[in-house]
């Protein structure tokens, strides 16, 4: 299939990109790595009149240490994130989730910011961004603003990004000394999560001192499993604690029903995968 015709703009600075977006009107689409958008264009599920490519703006790429946080440029590829020691050291959960995305070719092109802005409920990075309390920096015609991950994801494929705004970078508070695991259930031929669980814990003296757990594809947006977190914190890092905590994984979720799973099965998966994810994260 061949996409519908569109005009193409490849600005070289963020300011130019914001201007190009404003000039293009409501019918423009931003292309980051293009690993979701290009298939969508080919299937003609979307036919923008203008495509604005962020691929020629070097300032949007890379990971930098900003004291108590890492700042990840929105156009940093999954591959670059996997090869960035800073991410492994201070935001291990993101590295673990990134490693499960699609395949090497797609990880070479796909970007951290593109995945978050696309907001596919089966996307693997959303839950990790939420669990670690990431904050999005967004640029628009009126300057910049910050939005917490908890407010950023609004609905299926919908974020708080306005049509004239661009995701610039993602500020991830450092979770140094935390251990993490991303446990995913998917069809082998399709790496999209049917359900997945992002878990990060800080174990201190055999007990779970802090825990962050978030779920992929258990609602139209990623959700924190707060019941699980409550049931973990302050207790011994052992199998009994994790088993009991994981029972609460589906609390407050609203899983979709589709060809892959019904709601009951998704809830079951959430409990089982939470148990596995926390077990692996805590090294039990």
């Amino acid at each position, binding site marked *: *299939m*061949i*996409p*519908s*015709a*569109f*005009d*193409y703009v*490849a600005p070289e600075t963020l300011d130019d990109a914001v201007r190009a977006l404003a000039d293009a009107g409501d019918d423009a689409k931003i*292309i980051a790595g*293009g*690993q979701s958008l*290009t*298939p969508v*264009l*080919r*299937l003609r599920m979307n036919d923008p009149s203008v*495509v604005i*490519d962020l*691929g020629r703006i070097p300032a949007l790429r890379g990971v930098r240490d900003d004291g108590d946080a890492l700042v990840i440029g929105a156009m940093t590829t999954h*591959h670059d994130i996997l090869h960035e020691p800073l991410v492994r050291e201070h935001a291990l959960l993101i590295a673990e989730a990134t490693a499960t995305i*699609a*395949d*090497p*070719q*797609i990880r*070479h*092109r796909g970007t951290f910011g593109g995945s978050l802005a696309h907001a596919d409920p089966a996307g693997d990075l959303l839950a990790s961004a939420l669990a670690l309390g990431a904050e999005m920096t967004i640029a628009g015609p009126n300057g910049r603003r910050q939005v917490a991950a908890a407010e950023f994801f609004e609905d299926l494929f919908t974020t708080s990004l306005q049509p004239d705004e661009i995701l610039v970078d993602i500020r991830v508070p450092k979770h140094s000394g935390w251990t993490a695991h991303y446990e995913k259930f998917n069809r082998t*031929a*399709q*790496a999209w999560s049917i359900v997945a669980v992002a878990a990060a814990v800080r174990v201190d003296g055999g007990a779970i001192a802090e825990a962050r757990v978030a779920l992929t594809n258990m609602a139209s947006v990623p959700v924190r499993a707060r019941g699980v977190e409550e049931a973990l914190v302050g207790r011994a890092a052992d199998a009994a604690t994790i088993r009991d905590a994981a029972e609460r994984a589906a609390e407050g979720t609203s899983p979709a029903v589709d060809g892959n799973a019904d709601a009951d099965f998704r809830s079951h998966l959430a409990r089982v995968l939470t148990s596995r994810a926390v077990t692996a994260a805590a090294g039990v």
Partner: protein
Amino acid sequence: MRITVDVDGTRYSDEVEPRMLLVHYLRDQLGKVGTVSGCDTSNCGACTVHLDGRSVKSCSVLAVQADGHEVTTVEGLAQDGTLHPVQEAFHECHALQCGYCTPGMIMQSIDLLEENPDPDEQQVREGLEGNLCRCTGYQNIVKAVQSAAGTMREGSAPQAGGAR
């Protein structure tokens, strides 16, 4: 829109529509039909080429995104009539049945071996997870990649650092 792309060591400059996919540019405009289009949905990896030395699925890249960059296809691997060690290994191990996935498998295998010159079987399978062989002929493909890895390690052993 005019683009300039280095493909297999030759510089091309062409007028293309922004919606043209890289795979169609390679095949229809440049006649590089060694790169095939398989699934149309970025699943199968048959269209894998290297863009600035990294494997990508050319059905999921616009030709205009390759402007100013370097593309290597399966047709650019052989040097002076000598097959690339991975091509040679696919031949020796009979790592194909119908052959449709082969160009993509070879391109991804080369990328994999650049990241990991000595992969075990599991690592080969994971490295090729974005490439589907609908004949299910994976066994010999894995063998070929490991055989090529051995050849390439031997070839690079005398050089410090093992750069290829």
